[in-house]
């Protein structure tokens, strides 16, 4: 078969579209094969949408408390409303419940109030809030039809605050701290890993030894020391950024190693030598020839680094050294379940822990899929 024959064969085959496919298209073909990763990706997308519109999606203000609803158990939504005369209609509602205290032991007990239902509606008016601190709004995704009534789909905490609203609000801080923290460690990691891998020699030695020392330090005491150094009177936002910086200062090492490794292996590639011989300047070689081959690997590494950040924030806050109330994050929420009494009184308070679990798993599935798809040329060619 001559070259020209082969050429036309390629032209007419279904692979013709593949011939024009850029690396991102090829990655997407590979990634789609990985069902679990696509599933993880969808979950993460949903979580970030929730984080973005937290105030709107949460039914109530996460800080509004009612003393009569302390440790209110979760309520189930019922969609069909049965009238007393036997007819029915579609009206989502929950059964209202009332707190009764045992006169002797003072133990709280919730019993349904017969005939009292809290009707729900989409986009109803509820607690007023400022979306992204800017837009005054009062509509919520789900709200009680009669303003002033309350319902607890996932129960209430010690102060009668709605756990669903609090978990949704916590999503914003927990999910973003991972993203912001990783971005920061990525900048450090690319910079230090990049110069270490590109220039090698003495710079490489210094950077690598630093990384090894950083890795050798036990992380928890390090976090503890750094957070303990934060003044207690800082406001929530300052504290949030301080925590992010602490996490990324500890977390950049892994990314720096990935970047350095890719640089080292790509430097040896013939096409990088060819680019040098084509007369490309050093920055052109790095940015036009080397970096595009690394981006997909970096994205995969970042995806796998985010859950570590989320876990770290949760751990710090749980220990009371990270974010502090009134800030709401999953770690802060878990502060509530540090004692056996809360566990006995309201097992639903563990919900934020479940969210951490789901998020970390989803990120790991996504990261695995991305890593497998990251080099769409590996299986081809050789």
């Amino acid at each position, binding site marked *: 078969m001559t*070259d020209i024959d*082969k*050429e036309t064969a*390629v*032209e007419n085959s*279904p*692979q013709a579209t*593949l*011939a*024009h*496919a*850029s*690396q991102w298209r*090829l990655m997407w073909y590979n990634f789609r094969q990985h069902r679990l990763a696509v599933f993880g990706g969808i979950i993460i997308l949903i979580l970030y949408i929730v984080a973005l519109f937290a105030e709107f999606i949460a039914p109530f203000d996460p800080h509004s408390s009612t003393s009569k609803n302390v440790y209110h158990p979760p309520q189930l939504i019922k969609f069909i409303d049965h009238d007393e005369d036997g007819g029915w209609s579609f009206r989502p509602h929950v059964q209202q419940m009332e707190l009764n205290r045992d006169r002797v032991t003072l133990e709280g007990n919730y019993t349904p109030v017969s005939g009292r239902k809290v009707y729900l509606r989409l986009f109803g008016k509820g607690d007023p809030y400022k979306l992204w601190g800017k837009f005054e709004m009062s509509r919520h995704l789900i709200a009680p039809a009669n303003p002033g009534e309350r319902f607890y789909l996932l129960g209430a905490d010690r102060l009668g605050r709605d756990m669903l609203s609090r978990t949704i609000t916590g999503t914003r801080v927990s999910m973003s701290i991972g993203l912001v923290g990783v971005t920061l460690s990525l900048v450090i990691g690319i910079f230090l890993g990049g110069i270490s891998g590109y220039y090698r020699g003495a710079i490489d030695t210094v950077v690598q030894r630093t990384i090894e020392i950083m890795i050798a330090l036990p992380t928890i005491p390090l976090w503890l020391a750094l957070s303990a150094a934060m003044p207690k009177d800082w406001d929530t936002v300052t504290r949030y950024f301080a925590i992010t910086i602490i996490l990324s200062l500890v977390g950049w090492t892994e990314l720096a190693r990935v970047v350095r490794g890719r640089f080292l292996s790509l430097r040896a*590639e*013939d*096409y990088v*030598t*060819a*680019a*040098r*011989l*084509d*007369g*490309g*300047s050093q920055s*052109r070689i790095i940015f036009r*020839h080397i970096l*595009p*081959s690394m981006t997909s690997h970096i994205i995969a590494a970042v995806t796998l680094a985010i859950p570590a950040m989320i876990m770290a924030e949760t751990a710090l806050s749980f220990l009371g050294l990270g974010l502090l109330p009134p800030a709401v994050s999953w770690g802060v929420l878990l502060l509530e379940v540090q004692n056996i009494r809360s566990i006995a009184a309201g097992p639903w308070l563990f919900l934020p822990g479940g969210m951490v679990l789901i998020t970390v798993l989803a990120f790991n599935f996504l990261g695995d899929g991305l890593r497998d798809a990251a080099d769409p*040329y590996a299986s*081809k*060619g*050789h």
Partner: protein
Amino acid sequence: MNDLSAENANNIVLEIKNLVTEFPTRDGTFRAVDDVSFSLKAGKTLCVVGESGSGKSVTARSILQILDSPGRIVSGQILLHSLRGIASDADGPTDLARLKPRSNIIRSIRGREIAMIFQEPMSSLSPVHRIGNQIAEVLRLHEGMSKKQAWAQSVNLLDQVGISDPAAAADRFSFEFSGGMRQRAMIAMALACNPSVLIADEPTTALDVTTQAEVLDLIKSIQAERDMAVLFITHDIGVVAQIADEVVVMRQGKVLEQGDVFGMFENPGHPYTRELISGARDLDQPAAQRLAARASRDIGELILTATDVRKEFTISKSLFGLRPDKIAVGLKDASLELYAGENLGIVGESGSGKTTLARCLQRVYDLSSGTIRYSDRNGESVDLGSLPSSQLRPYWRDIRTVFQDPFGSLNPRMTVAEIVGEPMLVSGELSGRDLQMRVEELLELVGLPASAAQRYPHAFSGGQRQRVAIARAIGPRPRIIIADEPTSALDLSLRAKTLDLLLSLQEQMDLSFVFVTHDIAVVRYFCDRVAVMYKGGIVEVGDSETICSDPQHPYTQSLLSAVPRPDPLQRGNTRVRYSESVD
């Protein structure tokens, strides 16, 4: 002796009948082996020859049922006639195709009745077990020997495959062996249970030509000793001509032709076989195109002179300079001259320093000592060796490179237009529409359609990719092209085409070539002069015809005598062995 072999000739050991092997894929079923039939006779060698993707390896793997998932045998028979020590023996031949891939019977046949050796011995030997233990393992598993017996037998086997000091060698690990030694150890392991069939899947492709000759000799002598049937898979017509009794030519999963080796080389029936054989023979003589070109135009002035070029690599730096750094000498004071319009070959085996020299000529590597004088278009002479790297750019436009591996040398993330246009773009010479036109012009020069420009390299075959690489090299109108084994990753039929392309470009663009290769045939076809390298030094330089027909240096003699000639009538030429070349 003759009577005996005639008797054995009819002794069929393994028979393959209408074998079909398929790989189900997303876009339908791919038939890798399509209705293949042949038979192996005791004491005879059957060569299966074909280019990459012809289904020859899959055929071999089907026999032992070690197909890569999801491949499976769909129909056909694989009849094994001699089966020792297995109960069902009396009923006649065993059909391997009907056995389950994980059944006990097939497992006892693998290694015991039918042994296999692979192309890359490094990956077939375990790096964490001693060579002796690996061979002993086979013996204990299949022959039930005791630990001590098995060890003694493996030392014995290593001795038989010609490894010197076998007792010490058995105690070593595979990574301590050279490529040739590893392949010998693999053969020792394959022979452990005295199999009646040996399947060799390109066992010498990864080896140097002198080592290849040794390994082929070894297989031959062992085969004669044990009356073993050998199924030898190769893409190299020269090897076929040297060792085959019978030949099966495969293409796209089908058998095109099979028959006696002498008959087939004398009178090939299928046009494809003819093309293969004439392709190999054409390469074994000077290209007519080159001779014609030289007749019409003389070789010009001296344009590149390397004098005493030395290159040392630092292997490990000592801490705080307490000891001297460990240094490997890649190039020992090599001197070379290149004249305008000529093709200079640099030939040598792996590790001889030929690529290092090529990279030094272009100053990709910094020299440890020596000079490289280049006289530019205006006749001004400059020493590339002492120039600071920042001033090399204009000379890199005059001296261009074509790399060996067409898969690694093209950035998979750039389109062909971007790759070919890069040198003109970074020099600011052309951009936009002009650049696009120039790229199309270059693609046309190398025989690729203009539509190739917008594609990515993964859409092309090896030969086409190498054309893209050539287009990139000639882009800035260079004077010298350093080609580092540009054809060794290509199938035979593409080699001559690629070389012809280079020759026609030479005429059109007035180029000189430095052609690095390990393949003597390519030197003869393409090069006017040749430098033979051995262990970092140049041992002989001269006219390529003279060196090929009358080599002076003993190393060159041994190298040339090891080259398998694509003619079965030229077998058994006396091999010259160079004392230092033993592994």
